[in-house]
């Protein structure tokens, strides 16, 4: 049962051709999904591929490598724009999960409850996908197509997340039934830029309330020019047509819909106002 540990991207891509081998990063989605069964017969470990781990800055934005762990996100020196992503990183499972689980794995696994997705949607993240034939980019919102479904082609590797430089501050709230190790009932991320008392721009995303986490473009547009408290009020009265929450073991659909409004209002306030640590919800 080979486990390949390539050190270059080209080697990794080559090993993944033929569709037999499975990409492995932190294994925190892959192994539990086996449900005590045996691992895939052939795996390609991406964690040692040169250049895939870490966060860097370019002229136009930020690059989060395709094998960057949540712990690396937490420890990185990032501007307040990333407060939401950092808060999400802190909420992923536990220290153990954060130490091995990767941001890219979270996206490729495409769980509706993936905490990374709303945080990255609110940052207008794009994914960079590499194949032996070349590299392509697409917005994260297009990349994930449904629960556990993405545009990742067989043999392709998510090599990076690309986040455009922007002003503004991020926030993230996760709602769960216990403090640690909890699958979200709902989570909300906001990136808000203010001018004086008024909102200049707001980017909002909600997870676990639709097959794929969603941005809220209509609400975002409506917030421009509003004060923070007006914006909070708008969030509470907005009817969230983007969302289609379901009943599951964690909560009912009606509750999710109602809770999201509260969380969005609070996330806007958090992102707009404070410099403090993002407090935990639930």
């Amino acid at each position, binding site marked *: *049962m*080979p*486990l*390949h*540990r*390539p*050190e270059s991207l080209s080697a990794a891509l080559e090993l993944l051709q033929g569709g037999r081998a499975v990409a*492995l990063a*932190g*294994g*925190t989605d*892959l*192994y*539990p999904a086996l*449900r*005590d069964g*045996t*691992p*895939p*017969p*052939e*795996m390609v*470990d991406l*964690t*040692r591929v040169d250049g895939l781990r870490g966060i860097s800055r370019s002229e136009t934005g930020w690059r989060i490598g395709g094998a960057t762990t949540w*712990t690396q996100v937490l420890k990185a020196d990032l501007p307040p724009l990333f407060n939401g992503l950092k808060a999400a990183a802190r909420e992923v*499972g*536990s*220290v*153990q*999960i954060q*130490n*091995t689980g990767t941001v890219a794995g979270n996206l490729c696994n495409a769980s509706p409850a993936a905490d990374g997705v709303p945080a990255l949607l609110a940052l207008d993240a794009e994914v960079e996908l590499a194949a032996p034939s070349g590299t392509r980019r697409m917005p994260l919102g297009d990349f994930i197509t449904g629960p556990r479904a993405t545009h990742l082609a067989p043999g392709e590797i998510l090599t990076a997340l690309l986040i455009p430089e922007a002003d503004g501050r991020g926030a993230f709230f996760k*709602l769960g*039934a*216990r*403090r*640690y*190790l*909890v*699958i979200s*009932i709902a989570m909300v991320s906001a990136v808000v830029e203010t001018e004086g008392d008024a909102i200049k721009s707001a980017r909002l995303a909600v997870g676990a309330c639709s097959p794929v986490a969603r941005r809220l473009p209509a609400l975002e547009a409506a917030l421009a020019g509003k004060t923070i408290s007006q914006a909070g009020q708008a969030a509470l009265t907005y009817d969230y047509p983007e969302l289609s929450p379901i009943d599951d*073991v*964690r*909560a*009912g659909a009606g*509750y999710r819909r*109602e*809770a999201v409004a*509260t*969380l969005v209002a609070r996330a806007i306030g958090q992102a707009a106002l404070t410099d403090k640590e993002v407090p935990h*919800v*639930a």
Partner: protein
Amino acid sequence: MSLDAPQGHIGFTLNGAEITVPADPTARLSEVLRERAGARDVKVGCNAGDCGACTVLLDGAPVCACMIAAGQAQGCEIETQAGLVARDRDAERLAQSFQRHQAAQCGICTPGMMVSAVALLRSGEALTEDSVSDALGGVLCRCTGYRKIIAAVLDASTTAPLAEGGIGAPIARLDGWPKVNGSERFGDDVAPADALTVQVIRAPFHRASFRFGDLEAFRKENALELILTAQNVPGENRFGVIPGFEDQPVFAEGETRFRGEAVAAVIGNREALAAMGRFPVTWEELPSVLTPEGADTAALLHEDRAANVMCRGYVARGNAAEAMGRAAHVVSGDFSTGFIEHGYIEPEAASARRVGDRIEVQCCTQAPFMNRDGIAGIMGLAPEQVRILPTATGGGFGSKLDLTAQPYVALAAWILNRPVRLAYTRTESIATSTKRHPSQVHMEIGADAEGRISAVRFDGVFNTGAYASWGPTVANRVPIHASGPYKTPNYEAKSAGIHTNTAPAGAFRGFGVPQSAVAQEQLYDLLAEKLNMDRLAFRRLNCLGNGDPTVTGQVFETGMGIDACFDALKPHWDKALAEAEAFNATNTAKKRGVGIAAGWYGCGNTSISNPSTIRAGITPEGTLCLHQGAVDIGQGANTVIAQIFAEALGVPVGQITILGPDTDITPDAGKTSASRQTYISGNAARLCGAALRAKILRLGNVSEEATITLEDGGITLSDAGTTVRVELEPSEGYAIEAVESYDPPTTPLDENGQGDPYAVFGTAAQICELEVDMALGTVRLLRIVAAHDVGRAINPLLVEGQIEGGVAQGIGLALMEEFLPGRTENLHDYLIPTIGDVPPIESLVIESGDAHGPYGAKGLGEHCLIPTAPAVLNAIAHATGARVHHLPATPDTVRAAIRAAGTGT
């Protein structure tokens, strides 16, 4: 490929030693560490990242070894609990701090906790409650309630000595060091390396009929050693725990009654099992019933149990109907709770080997002798032909009383004459082990104009699942306890256990009493509100005192200490109420509330003989041995029983060598359940210690007052200034020996449930302070104050440990736990409290003594969680004005209650 180790091997540094082991590089690192590298201090509780028991340091970072491909560790440095404690001074100090604080109970989570804590200590981050919680948040503990773990980590750098002393001293767990240094061995840790593995084939439907294909052909094709079905059971293909209710087959025949029920087992080596094809069985799903509604008209699960009623319980006193009619104030309500999973971090595990015409089973268990007799019945052997060698048990809470993995390994090892092992997967454990009974309760309580309880009517329906297990005990106990520890002159309580197509409900800390308390204590709040009385004062007015008859007419002249519990809580209550009021005056989004609830619990079995026997002896060489068969599942029996014995004998506890609980060498101390070990086995230990003392004093011809000193292979007796040396005669066995038994004095109950069901009751009352986010319905607990009358605290630290662990389970029951068959069969859908969900707990230990308990001690294990859930619910109601009737009070449930009450926005 960049593996430097030879093909098929992986090399890494394990606790400082460079090693190379044969391993599949895609295998889970946890498995390779345990099975190939011998690191059995790495525990496996879930194989899915959910429990953290498998935490190791990989190049210094804590990770779950169950999700690391072994090949990813190639060339890395791996550190585990045992290695850390042996090699790292800070880790060794941490281990001592764990001992000092009794941060390990059963010890199965301890490796994960300590390894995570070492990473925090090394990081240099400031140690605060928050940083400790963040660092340890990925490791679940079901025993301790986490508070002592937090305290131990915060105190990791100090080196205070361990406490010493006799009864009443907070001495460290006598069996604690192996738990904190990584050498403790649990159910699967002792499996012989050459053992074959069992895999059980289980039903995928709630109810189904089934047919096997060609089993022999399948066996050959898949290189299996053996396939077991009902046909291979030489004795009776059924087991159970209550005489007359042994109704559960080892392997179903023709029809399965719950999802996960066993129909066959395959035995082979690991490779063969991993490669095995689809087992040849065809299923036909049949209509099933999962709740008591509709069970009366559903197909009978057991031919002899009409309407699927397993059994009923009844207690009546006075005239409840008439008194209710006359009551000045009456409240009533319906309350329900769901299936609760025990959630011990160690899944069931056993291994067996045949020794001539005997079978030896090593397993985690709460009831070695019951297991022995059960296996003997299944195998058609005499009980003496079965030997149970209990390993350390990584939590039990009631579910490890019943047989689980043992019959499969015993049968296979017997037939194959080779060692055989089986460790349940987490899913297998949750799907098939016994559960706390779901309850549906209708209750009505009446009081007179002055607020005195005049009448109670209680009707509880309990879903007992497919098989009886301990269901009859629940049906019996509940009507005796449903009044709570209060004077209730007119009382009528009915209970029924109903069969459904679900996993059997059995014993779980409290045997149905926590469920009835959820109804009774919430109605008490409603009644206090109607009476416009303070909720504590109302309870204090009505609580039982010495000399008051209980609802079964039993009168305790001493030791009914619930009044003292309320009195101890009073200052905390007043302060908490004032603080909540002040907070609420200035906050609208969040509201604070304070709740109170009480509980009681009879120690030992209900109205039947349940003796314990303890044996002790002194070898000719002067070693004092205590044959201690009261299984320590983390609660501390090894320490408490030894403390009691040492006190009675008059020697320091450190001189005792504890033997057992192997059924070949220890007499039967009964099962670890019903909070009976401290009281019943403790009394046997006291009698045994006293008997041994009397014999020794007689040999020296000295007075009762003499001091016994064991030294230099003999005994020195000092009495009023004279010293006598007793030489020990050479002999085969012990030079001096004593065996004593104790059986609690109880009486049978009459047709109205009147009589003396237990010789000892323990009582408790708790306060919960919390904060509710009114818009989200999320609940944050702030503090629990728990007042417990334990009669006499043999070991105050163990008492606190039991209280904190029980409170944590009560929190889970109140706020998050519910097993849904087929849906929450893992530890990420079935939630138990994490380290961040248990607030500070202040224990107020009341010692009112007891007429029967050893040195006045009562049992405690189950009392701890009974008041917690209703105290939480009462606090939620106080904070929000909204009452939750149907548990668990998850955020959506609380929010719905707030909306219904119209108290939110």
